[in-house]
């Protein structure tokens, strides 16, 4: 659905995106992860033809971008950075205006506009919002409206930049369920986020970007592989450490981290020594470990060089 080759964008001296090769397949729920300022939004903007690439090729739905952007975008729903709407108009009017501005398609025609507007408002939980102008909406409601406008054209591909921004836990869950439902019905989802937990719960494939470079791209289960170590929780940790001497590489209360053994072998030995085993499982990497291992600090952290501080202190 989305393929890029050597996608690069330079803003003056800043290399915002550096030879990114994305590969999003049909039916994916693709999570585009990276710290703030790592080039996620710029990449999204390039995919949608808002920003022109310095180098590299983009294909969305099999067509080159930005050359055939007009044929592709009617089948793409997008949320870019923040949602936006005319503040003095209601959600319904905003959606109607937006829909009337662009070309109709087979799935989203002029005739079913009213129905579609009602449908998407219901999907995002704004059905009874009435005629209040958007300027009176809370952040979460605006976010829902943004997602509604992305869904309005009944797209085959959703490109969502930080879709759960500003939502409360309940709202995040609702949107997650909505996206999973749409994905089951055949919509491919490409979402960018810096929230690891969100991607971990929603996505099937992950791309990790750091300082404009794509540092990893794989299925979520593949990234979260086993570390080769074993986690056990036992009734008598001191006894277990004595028994498994040399194998224990970490201890936290009654939890032990073992290396050079397997779940089967460790439990067998512990049970033989009459030590109760409450839990035993192979250790898996969390997405957090993977991402933190691959990326550096976000560009919003600006560390001083320490020089100034010294001068200020007597």
């Amino acid at each position, binding site marked *: 659905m989305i393929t890029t080759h050597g996608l690069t964008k330079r803003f003056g001296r800043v290399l915002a995106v550096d030879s990114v090769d994305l590969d999003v397949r049909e039916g994916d729920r693709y999570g585009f992860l990276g710290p703030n300022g790592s080039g996620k939004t710029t990449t999204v903007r390039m995919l949608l*033809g808002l920003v022109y690439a310095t180098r590299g090729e983009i294909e969305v739905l099999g067509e080159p971008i930005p050359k055939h952007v007009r044929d592709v975008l009617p089948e793409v729903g997008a949320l870019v950075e923040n*949602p936006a709407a005319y503040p003095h108009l209601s959600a319904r009017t905003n959606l109607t205006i937006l829909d009337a*501005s662009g070309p109709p398609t087979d799935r989203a025609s002029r005739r079913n506009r009213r129905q579609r507007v009602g449908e998407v408002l219901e999907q995002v939980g704004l059905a009874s919002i009435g005629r209040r102008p958007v300027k009176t909406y809370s952040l979460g409601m605006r976010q829902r409206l943004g997602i509604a406008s992305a869904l309005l054209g009944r797209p085959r591909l959703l490109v969502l930049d930080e879709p759960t921004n500003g939502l409360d836990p309940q709202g995040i869950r609702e949107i997650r369920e909505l996206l999973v439902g749409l994905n089951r019905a055949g919509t491919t989802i490409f979402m960018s986020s810096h929230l690891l937990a969100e991607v971990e719960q929603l996505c099937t494939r992950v791309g990790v970007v750091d300082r404009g470079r794509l540092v990893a791209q794989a299925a979520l289960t593949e990234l979260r592989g086993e570390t080769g170590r074993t986690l056990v929780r036992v009734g008598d940790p001191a006894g277990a450490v004595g028994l498994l001497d040399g194998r224990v590489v970490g201890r936290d209360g009654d939890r032990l981290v073992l290396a050079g053994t397997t779940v089967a072998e460790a439990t067998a030995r512990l049970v033989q020594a009459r030590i109760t085993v409450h839990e035993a499982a192979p250790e898996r990497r969390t997405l957090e470990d993977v991402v933190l291992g691959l990326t550096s600090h976000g560009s919003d952290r600006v560390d001083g060089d320490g020089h100034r501080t010294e001068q200020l202190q007597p």
Partner: protein
Amino acid sequence: MIVVEIRKLFGRRRTWVSIFLLCLLPTVVAVFLSLTDIGPRPGEGPAFLSAVLSNGALYPAAALGIVLPIFLPIAVSIVAGESIAGEATTGTLRYLLVRPVGRTRLLVAKLSSITLFVLVAVFAVSITALVVGLNLLGSGPVVATTTVSGTPLSPSQLGIRTVLTILYVGWSMLGVASVAFFLSTLTDSPLAAALGGLSALVGSTVLVTLDAADNVRDYLPTRYWLAWVDFFRDPILWRDIERGFLVQGVYVVVLLGMAWANFTTRDVTS
């Protein structure tokens, strides 16, 4: 898309308030004139305001003369400056482009709504002035309607010349609009674009009066703005009107071309 843009612009209260304010000023002036009967001496004050005391039918032209130097350009600049930069500020520009609305299409639609605004504003001022003028200043004997040159003017001649004036003033305003419109594609701040359009206007007005700028004077955008007074001479003095039309046309074409070239190739990062 054009219809959507026009409805967006004219669906806003702000648009109608600005048109209302434009009509208010000439009305206030007419009230004072009718109450006191003291007009500016001939040759002073706004263009031929002195002539309307005896005849309200000339007042539409005089009213355009009143709003032309500042009020009309301010209103037009604000609307044109708002066009693209305003969408960028609310963030709706990216959603329009992603909808997708072609960039050229968006420019054409915005330009159409601006042009319509200019025409509506100029017509509203003229019609208000006609009503106010006839009621407050009196219509006077028809034969007494005279040109600036002193010859009589029939009602139909007056009508035609007033319409020509409206179109000429509208064309001049399109010049202001295209400066602000170009700037609007350049910056994400509607205020900067509107003020930029006005600065160009003020700059040009200053240079026109400056003798040292004699060489460039004839190419300045505001040089022939007041040439519409020549519609009320007998016979109509076409020379300045034609030149004004052409100079303004060059500005409009060049600036709109620049707006197009800039907007269709730039990164939308707002």
